[in-house]
C-alpha cells in the first residue's frame, strides 16, 4: 500500500503518539485472536489422535460419539473422552484449548450450584455465570460479536452517511433542504426505544439489529460530510475538474471525498465505541441478540442483578472498560494526528 505524503505524515504522527499506537496494536491483536476464538475457547479439542486417525474438530461438522466407540449419535462428549484416554481405557490422546468450555454450554459441578467462582482447578478462570457457563469464554465470543457488529454497523452507516452527506453538500438547493429536514426528524427519534419496540414484536437476530441500528444512526455523519463537501466544492481543484468535464460522480467521490477523509477517520473509533455500547445496552435490557448468544450486556445484567457474585460484574465491566478505553485512546491519537492545524495543505 502506497501512502500519499500527507497520509504518511499523519501515520508517522499517529505512530509517534505512543498511547494511541499501542492501543491500536492491542486492539488489532484482540480482534485477530477473537476471530480464532474456536481455537482458544471451546469444548471441542484442537486435535485428537485415535486409532491411527487424526481429527481436528474445532471447525465444521460435529463428530458423533460413534466415531470414538460411543453408542450415541450426537456430538462426542470430549471431556469424557479425555478421561478415557487418560485412564488408558482408550488408546489415543487429545489436546484441549486453553479454555475448555464452549460459551453456550452449561457446565455443572456435582454438589455445587452455579455460579461457580473463578478457579484454576475447575478451568473456569473467570468463574461461571448464573447458568454455569464459562465467563471468559463468553467474554471472548461476546467480544467477537460486539466488535464485528460495530464494524459492520460502521460500514453500513458510513456508506449511507457519506453518500447522502456528499450528495447534499454537492447538490445543495432543494435536495439538501429536504434531506436536512428528514435528518432532523430522524435524529429526534430515540433509537434505543425504537429498537425495543421492534424487538418486542420480533426477536431480532444479528443482521436485523445491524440494519435497524444503521437505519437510525447514519444521520450524524451526514452533517460533517455535507459541510465538508460544501467547502471543498468551492475550491479551485473542483472547478478545474469540472472544467475538463469530469462527471458529478467522479468529482464527488474521486476528488472531494479523498479530501474529506480526515473527518471520517477521526470519527471512526468513536463510531466503534457507540456501536459496542448500543449492542451492550440492548443486550443489558434484554432486547438484543436472542439467548443464549454470548454477550457482554447480558453478562453485565446478570452481574448487576447478582452483585453478591462479584466476579460476574467485575469481568464484564473490566472487559468493557478495557476495550472502550483502548478504542478511545486510538480515537484521541487519530484526532491529534489528523489535526489540520499541524498538517494541512491548501493549494
Amino acid at each position, binding site marked *: 500500500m502506497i501512502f500519499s505524503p500527507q497520509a504518511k505524515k499523519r501515520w508517522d504522527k499517529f505512530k509517534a503518539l505512543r498511547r494511541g499506537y499501542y492501543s491500536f496494536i492491542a486492539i488489532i491483536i484482540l480482534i485477530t485472536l477473537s476471530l480464532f476464538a474456536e481455537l482458544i475457547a471451546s469444548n471441542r479439542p484442537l486435535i485428537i489422535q485415535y486409532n491411527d486417525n487424526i481429527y481436528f474438530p474445532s471447525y465444521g461438522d460435529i463428530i458423533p460419539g460413534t466415531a470414538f466407540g460411543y453408542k*450415541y449419535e*450426537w456430538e462426542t462428549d470430549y471431556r469424557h473422552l479425555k478421561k478415557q484416554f487418560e485412564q488408558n481405557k482408550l488408546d489415543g490422546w487429545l489436546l484441549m484449548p486453553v479454555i475448555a468450555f464452549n460459551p453456550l454450554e*452449561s457446565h455443572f459441578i456435582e454438589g455445587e450450584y452455579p455460579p461457580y467462582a473463578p478457579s484454576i482447578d475447575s478451568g473456569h478462570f473467570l468463574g461461571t455465570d448464573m*447458568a454455569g457457563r464459562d465467563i471468559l469464554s463468553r467474554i471472548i465470543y461476546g467480544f467477537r460479536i460486539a466488535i464485528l457488529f460495530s464494524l459492520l454497523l460502521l460500514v453500513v452507516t458510513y456508506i449511507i452517511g457519506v453518500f447522502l452527506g456528499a450528495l447534499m453538500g454537492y447538490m445543495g438547493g432543494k435536495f439538501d433542504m429536504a434531506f436536512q429536514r428528514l435528518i432532523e426528524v430522524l435524529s429526534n427519534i430515540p433509537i434505543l426505544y425504537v429498537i425495543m419496540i421492534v424487538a418486542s414484536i420480533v426477536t431480532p437476530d444479528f443482521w436485523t439489529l445491524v440494519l435497524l441500528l444503521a437505519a437510525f444512526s447514519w444521520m450524524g455523519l451526514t452533517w460533517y460530510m455535507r459541510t465538508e463537501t460544501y467547502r471543498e466544492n468551492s475550491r479551485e481543484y473542483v472547478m478545474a475538474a469540472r472544467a475538463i468535464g469530469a462527471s458529478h460522480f467522479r468529482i464527488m467521490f474521486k476528488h472531494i471525498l479523498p479530501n474529506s477523509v480526515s473527518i471520517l477517520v477521526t470519527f471512526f473509533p468513536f463510531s466503534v465505541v457507540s456501536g459496542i455500547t448500543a449492542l451492550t445496552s440492548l443486550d443489558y435490557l434484554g432486547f438484543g441478540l436472542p*439467548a443464549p448468544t454470548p454477550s457482554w450486556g447480558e453478562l453485565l445484567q446478570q452481574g448487576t442483578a447478582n452483585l453478591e457474585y462479584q466476579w460476574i460484574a467485575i469481568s464484564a465491566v473490566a472487559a468493557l472498560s478495557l476495550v472502550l478505553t483502548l478504542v478511545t485512546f486510538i480515537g484521541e491519537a487519530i484526532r491529534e494526528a489528523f489535526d489540520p492545524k499541524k498538517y494541512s495543505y491548501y493549494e
Partner: protein
Amino acid sequence: MKFFKIISICSVIFASMVNAAKPALPADLIWETNNSAKPWSSTEAKAGGTFTDFILTFPPTLRTVGPDSNSSFRSYINANQLGLTHFHPNTMEVIPQIATHWAYGKDGKTVFYKIDKQARWSDGVLVTAGDFIFTLDLMRSKHINAPWYNNHYSNELTNVTAYNDHTISITGRVAKPKDELHYFYGLTPTPKHFYKNITKDWVKNYNWEVVPNTGPYQISEIKKGKRITFRKKENWWAADRPLNKYRFNADKVVLNVIRDVNMAYKYFEKGELDTFSLILPEFWHNKAKGFLYDNGYLEKFVFYNDTPRSSSGLFLNTATPILKDRNVRIALAHSLNFDRVIKTILRGDYERLDAFHTGYGEFSNANIKARDFDLPKSNALLDGAGWNDRGGDGIRIKDGQRLSVNLVYGRKEHSDRWSILKQDALKAGIELNLKLQDSSSHYKTIMQKQHQIAALGWSTGFRPAYWQHFHSENANKPQTNNITNINNKDIDDNITAYRSETDNNKRIVLANKLAQQIHDEAAFIPSFMVPYTRGAHWRWIKFPDVPANKTSNSLYSPFGDGGVFWIDPVIEIDTKAARKNNSKYPVIERTFKNYLVKTP
C-alpha cells in the same frame, strides 16, 4: 276530600302493581348457613401498627374493569370487596360473607341469597339487593369497554332477581354442582348510590375514584407513582363475625412502589418493609443470608400449600407441520431435561409438574407422570417417525427439512432454563430456537396461534377447565385459549359431558379420563411447580401456630383470606435496639408441613 280518596286509591293500585312486579320467593326453599366453620386466626393477635409492603408498579387505574384494569394491584382492591359467600381456605366449605343464608333452586342453576342486614358500604350506606342488580347492569354496559365482562355477565349469568331489599336469586346459563354455583354465579355488589348511572365517560371518570367497598380496609391515601395506603375501618360491619375476629390486625397497610425487586430487598433489609416473599431460588439461597438472619432479626418460613398449580410448561402448536406428528411431540418431551434445570439453577427447590391440572384434589389424575428425560426413547421415536438422518450439526433432517422449532417465551429471567433444555435437546437432534418476547407481544403471538412452541403458565381456577384449552371449537382460530390447537373428537365428547354434568363424582371420573387423554396427546409438556410459599419477615411480625392456609399463595397477604399476622410493637423496638448494638436472638428458620401433599 274526594281528591285525597282518588290519590289513596291510586297509591293502593300502584303499590299492588309494584308488589305484583316483585316476584314471589319459592316456598319450598331450604335455607342453609354455616356457623360452624373453624377460624384460622390466633386469639393472641394484637391489633394496631402499620404494615409496609411493596408493589413493583403503580397501578394504571383504580378501576377493576375496563382498559388497563388487569394489573396485579386489582387483587388488593378485590380482596376488600366481599362477595356473597366464600370458601373456607382450609376445608373449602361454603362460608357466609355478605349473604348469611343461601338456598338452591330446583333447576340446578339458581342460588338464593339472604343479604346480611348489617352489611354496609364504607360510606355507611346499607348494601341492598339493588347493588347486586347494578353489578349486572354495569358489567353488561358497553361503556365499561370490557367485552369479556360484557359477554360473561350477559351469557353466563342470565338473571338476578330481587325479592325484597335483602333477598336475591342469581341464575346462570347452565346447571352446575352446588359449590360451583357459588363460585361461578356468586356476585360481588357494586355501590349503585356511588355510580348512579353509567355514561360513556365511565372509564375516564372512574380511573382514580376510590369506590366504596365492603371489606375490612379502604384506600385512604394515594400518592401517584409512589405509594397507596389502606386504612382499617373503625367500625367494620363484619368485624365481629367469628371468622373475622383476630384478623386484619394492622391499622394501616402501606404499599410502596419500588420498581426493582433487588432494590426492594435492600429496603427490606433496612427494615423499611416488614416482609419479603422469597419464592425465587436465587433470592432464598443467595440473598436471604447474612448477619440479619444469623442474629435472628429476620425469620425465614417455608409453608407447603395444597392448592391448584399453575398449568406451566411448553405448549406445542399441533398445527405446525413438524409438531403435527404425535411421535415427534412425545420425542420432544423425552428430550427435555427438566430435572437438570431443577437440580442445578433452580437448586432443587422447584418440582416437576406432572399434568395440566395438578393440585385440584380428586379432579387431578394422580397417575399421570410427566414424560421424563430419556434420550434413547426420544431417538427411537424420531427414527421411527422418519427423522433418521442427521445433518453436519447433529440436527435431524427429513425431506430436506431440519428438525428445528422456535420456542417463544416472555420472561427474561427464564432464559437460562430454556438454554439448558436446548443443550440436551440437541443430543436428540432437535434444535430449539429461543425467542424472548416482551410479555404483551408474547401473549399476542400465542393468541394469534403463531407460535410453534410457547412457554406459558395459565392461572388456576376453581375446577379444571377443559373446554377453553382443549375443545376443537377453540382450535385453529385466533383469540382462544386452545393454544395447542388440539382437535380430537373423543376429547370433545368428554369435555361436553364434563361441562353438563352436575354430579361431582361423575365429573371426577370424567376429569381423570380427560387428564389421561390430554397426556396422551402430548401437546403440553409440563414444566415446573412450586409446592410451597416462603419468605422472610422481621421478628416483630407474629403469626398463629399455623401461619397460613391450605390454599395460601403467600404468607404475608394482609387482606382476603390472610390478615392473620400481627405486629408486636414491643418486639419492634427491642429488635431495632438490638440491631444497633448487635445483640443476638435465636436463629429462626421454620418449615410448615401441615398441608404438604404426599407424592404417591
